[in-house]
């Protein structure tokens, strides 16, 4: 009943983990039966090991938190040897999130993970491109398209492009990712923010700035998912502040095909499975199915642009 088609994948349900917030899933295996989640998404894996940013790396803010982990990870060799087998043993769809500072790095990662038999790749575009003066891939449509296209040329599994919300017009980036051949779009990554300790006249985080996540960003994520879903034909994976089955249905309504749970899982390691358990009764109580909800947001007349509205035909007005 919750079965979800996502590109060529068939997921048990639309609920998956968000990259960097659930390790490889292995760390959470004693808290819940993870074979019951739709998919597990790994923390971003890079070609070479990365030590990450100096502490402190996290700080709680109203209804959210800031993090500046800095993509700490032991690199692809370690991941393939140690982590991937563990992830696969958990009995659900395995999506590996990859990050690089040059197109070549993304290509090597995509090749190696395709060969290793992961179910899909998620490309973390919130990475600086060293060949372009450390401009983030995610802030430039051209760089987004290049990175996605390069990954697509070698990948033998579906490729999802994970977008940053720290841009003026996310639909332009989403279109570029689709143009590059992405099989889906994950939105959103964290919003860049800052916390200050005025007594010490210093930023709280070791690196100064960090990414905001949690319920505080849910309205922004919903808005961006909704905007993206209207301009691309590929599926959208919604992420940002989800902590309940109600939240999941809001994202599906906005046009997401599936969702990812991040920060909320820190407080409750069994949350994803609890949400999966709750979805059927919530839908039943409203006497609807997932298909009734998905992308079924009543048209918001004033905001709907006349042109470039690829999904206009799917917009349903019920009443």
């Amino acid at each position, binding site marked *: 009943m919750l079965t979800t088609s996502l590109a060529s994948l068939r997921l048990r349900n639309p609920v998956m983990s968000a990259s960097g917030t659930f390790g490889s899933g292995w760390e*959470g295996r004693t808290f819940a039966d993870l074979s019951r989640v739709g998919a597990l998404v790994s923390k971003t894996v890079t070609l070479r090991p990365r030590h990450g940013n100096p502490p402190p790396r996290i700080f709680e803010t109203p209804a959210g938190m800031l993090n500046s982990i800095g993509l700490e990870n032991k690199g692809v060799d370690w991941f393939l040897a140690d982590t991937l087998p563990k992830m696969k043993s958990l009995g659900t769809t395995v999506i590996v999130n990859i990050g690089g500072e040059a197109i070549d790095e993304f290509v090597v990662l995509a090749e190696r993970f395709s060969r290793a038999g992961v179910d899909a790749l998620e490309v973390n575009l919130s990475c600086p491109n060293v060949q372009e003066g450390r401009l983030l891939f995610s802030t430039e449509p051209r760089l987004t398209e290049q990175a996605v296209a390069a990954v697509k040329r070698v990948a033998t599994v579906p490729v999802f492009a994970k977008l940053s919300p720290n841009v003026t017009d996310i639909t332009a980036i989403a279109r570029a990712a689709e143009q590059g051949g992405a099989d889906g779009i994950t939105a959103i990554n964290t919003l860049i923010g800052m916390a200050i300790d005025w007594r010490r006249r210093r930023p709280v985080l070791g690196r100064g700035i960090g990414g905001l996540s949690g319920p505080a960003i849910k309205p922004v994520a919903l808005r961006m998912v909704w905007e993206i879903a209207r301009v691309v034909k590929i599926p959208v994976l919604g992420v940002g502040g989800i902590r309940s089955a109600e939240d999941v249905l809001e994202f599906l309504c906005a046009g997401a095909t599936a969702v990812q749970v991040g920060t909320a899982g820190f407080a409750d390691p069994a949350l994803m499975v609890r949400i999966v358990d709750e979805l059927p009764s919530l839908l039943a109580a409203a006497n609807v199915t997932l298909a009734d909800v998905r992308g079924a947001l009543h048209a918001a007349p004033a905001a709907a642009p006349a042109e470039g509205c690829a999904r206009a035909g799917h917009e349903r007005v019920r009443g």
Partner: protein
Amino acid sequence: MQTSLHPLRRLRDLGGGSLAVEVDGPIPATLPGQFFMLRTGERWPVLLPRPFSLYDRADDGSWGSFLIKAIGPGTRALADTQPGEKIWLTGPLGRPFPPEERDPICVAGGVGLAPFLLLARQRHRQRQRTRLLFGGRSRAALAGIDDFAGIAEVHASTDDGSHGFRGMVTALLLDLLGKGTVRAGESVFCCGPDPMMVAVAKVCEQHGLRCFLSLETYMACGYGVCNGCTVKVQGPRFHGWPYSKTCTEGPVYEACELVHDH
């Protein structure tokens, strides 16, 4: 490791603003120094759960308690819980004090006392000697000290001399070294405010004592998935990696493993 909801049994006032928050079991077997992430079932005022050492536990796991001092919204919400209201517990988490170090000298400040009650109880049962050095500003700051009667050799210190040795806990440690109550080659387990731990580690280094510190790092998840709780480390245990996650590889570190760069 598990995550489960536990009704509050009672709050036991330990004085000085500290409470023993006692919850119904089942509380899984926990090693001294391990901790749980806590949040109230209703009206939790913040987003992230908060880490607390397990203070005490019934032998059969039918109840457990946490030593909590209200200093912010999370600790206040836990301290305001009413009997019957429920608290989420995730754990046990982290690496305990090394069980193989026998007859430890435990040095505590404030709520840093928490991991040592379970430790003293277990070591007492194993016929080991536990020396507890507990320091605070005054007698009121020594919340929980009475719980150690009969299971540890208690040495208190107060800054104002209102109870036990007058002075800081490091001076007490030096005093006991002088008297031969503590000897070079023994192991110190320490938990308390950072400045105290730094000072204790220094005394240990100067007097040939092994020193293990339990860190109170800011945590988001407590189970190793956010990489937010790292501290800078060195030593063979970390295979050259400069950071360690306190929630899984700690919170207990040998003092020489920690790198301070400021």
